[in-house]
């Protein structure tokens, strides 16, 4: 409880309370996050289960419109899925992929950055060169190539179960250099401080110094870029799904819903694109707003790029 007390009295919490944007964006984010985690409880239908919907309900408009039905608040998509439920499940997928991909890239990036920064020398230059090369090719292209490769390598049989973890790895792989560079930069700053010297003098081994002593002090910038990276990863997934390289058709994410709706945008079934689009934009927007605020408050020396 003491740490909670300390947190409540901190500058961080103080400015959070005083900033309506931070407060608002965080509440919306938290609300949507909870909705997605508890999707099975919140959504009226489990639309990822193919036996729950029927083609005869296809393309019904939202319930307040002429042909709308009470059962389907925001209408249905082309397969007859309840759009409202599908969006919740799609959001859940987006959250899983966003958070999962960021965890993956953070772990990879932190290990590389820490090793490179602390050991220096040839290890450093080799690792950072690899990061540079990958960083120089825009992440979308890396993700597209990786996605094409992975899809083929794993064959067709178990694609449905593998799609989610694969997307996490693909999006994670394409963005790790950002973490590696950030962590390396702060490790270089920390490395020569007294406490590290002290730890070295008392004979602690390298791994212990790296992970127990230096790492915690590099976490602030990691936290800051992480929020933006989650938004980034969600948008990457949407882009991949839009290009048809994302989630399988039976488990649509927000990106695949938008893509499916794009085909229907001229036929008058605007809701298939509109609602998922709004949800996707809202979700990434609140994350970005909160991330901006976080950066301003913590104001670490960030690597820009």
């Amino acid at each position: 409880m003491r740490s909670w007390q300390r947190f409540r009295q901190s500058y961080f919490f103080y400015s959070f309370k005083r900033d309506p944007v931070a407060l608002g964006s965080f509440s919306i984010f938290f609300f949507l996050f909870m909705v997605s985690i508890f999707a099975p409880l919140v959504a009226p239908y489990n639309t990822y289960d193919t036996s729950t919907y029927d083609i005869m309900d296809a393309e019904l408009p939202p319930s307040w419109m002429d042909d709308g039905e009470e059962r389907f608040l925001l209408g249905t998509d082309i397969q007859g899925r309840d759009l409202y439920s599908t969006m919740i499940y799609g959001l859940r997928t987006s959250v899983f992929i966003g958070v999962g991909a960021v965890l993956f890239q953070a772990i990879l990036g932190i290990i590389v950055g820490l090793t490179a920064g602390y050991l220096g020398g040839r290890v450093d230059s080799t690792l950072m060169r690899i990061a540079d090369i990958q960083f120089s090719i825009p992440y979308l292209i890396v993700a597209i190539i990786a996605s094409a490769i992975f899809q083929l390598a794993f064959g067709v049989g178990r694609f449905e179960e593998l799609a989610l973890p694969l997307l996490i790895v693909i999006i994670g792989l394409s963005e790790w250099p950002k973490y590696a560079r950030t962590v390396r930069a702060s490790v270089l700053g920390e490395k020569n401080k007294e406490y590290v010297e002290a730890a070295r003098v008392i004979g602690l081994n390298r791994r212990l110094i790296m992970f127990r002593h230096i790492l915690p002090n590099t976490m602030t910038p990691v936290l800051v870029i992480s929020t933006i990276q989650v938004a980034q990863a969600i948008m990457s997934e949407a882009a991949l799904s839009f290009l048809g390289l994302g989630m399988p058709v039976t488990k649509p994410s927000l990106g695949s819903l938008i893509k499916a709706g794009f085909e229907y945008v001229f036929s008058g079934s605007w809701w298939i694109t509109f609602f998922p689009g709004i949800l996707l934009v809202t979700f990434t927007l609140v994350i970005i707003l909160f991330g901006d605020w976080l950066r301003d408050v913590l104001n670490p020396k960030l690597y820009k790029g």
Partner: protein
Amino acid sequence: MFAFIVRRIIQAIFVMVIIAGIGFTVQNKLGDPVRDMVGERVSVAEREALRDKLGLNDPFLTQFGRFVRNAVHGDLGISYFHNKPTVDVILSKAPATLELVFGSTVMILVLCFPIGIYTAIKPKTWFSRFVMGSSTIGVAVPVFLTAITLIYIFGVELKWLPSYGRGETVDIWGWDTGLLTADGLLHLILPSISLSSIMLPLYIRLIRSEMMEVLETEYIKFAWAKGLRRYRVWLVHAFKNTLLPVVTVFGVEIGILFAFTLLTETVFQWQGMGFMFLEAVERSDTALLVAYLVVVGVMFVVINTLVDIAYGFINPMVRITGAK
């Protein structure tokens, strides 16, 4: 400097070999290009004969060796779909992509400076608030959603602007350009806006914050004290100093702009390199695919090298990476 460039060239070769290697490893799994060449009724034996003739049945190393040998001579194979050397295909599609990037760059540059400066000078007006609000939203809207919305509003409902393709183009010394015809320029508008929408908000914010920072500095205060006219202070003294960071960031971000042409070109059926790449994936045109990856890899290494060199010139305090 010389050592630096040599190192970068070695790096570029290294990147190419790796990319080509990856491309080659997956190409057999990307589908059979022969299937797209022949009609659906052609027998298995006939297809096998064709595969043999194309050398697709050779062992991996033989194929890869042949590819590398030819690549050294600048020959990256023949596209199965276009029936032309892959390099020619890529070069013939390059103008479209470059013009799209150019169009949106112009749009970004034309808009970001006045808006950025205005919002820095007059941060409290409703226009500034509106711009800042919408620029935040702009970052959160995926480019394909922007593109769909634009097509729907301006192409379908209002019918003001064409919604697909490049329109009329003219050939100038082998460069197929849409910039010189009215039709071509009209076709460029919506795709350029879509593509610029990912970068424009970032630049407006960047210029705004740089400008605000500069306005706080001593020498601007001194300029005020001297009694210089407002516009002179803003546009000459302050603005000049926001340029450096903008230029550097731009060098890096142009690569990202290029990557997003993939999405923009898909939605607008813009016949550029990104469109060609996704079509090649779909058609299993593996030769074109590998060539594209190699060309793009080289392009990015070149862009980054140029940016690094330029950065070194502009700001001598920065050591060039890798040059110890």
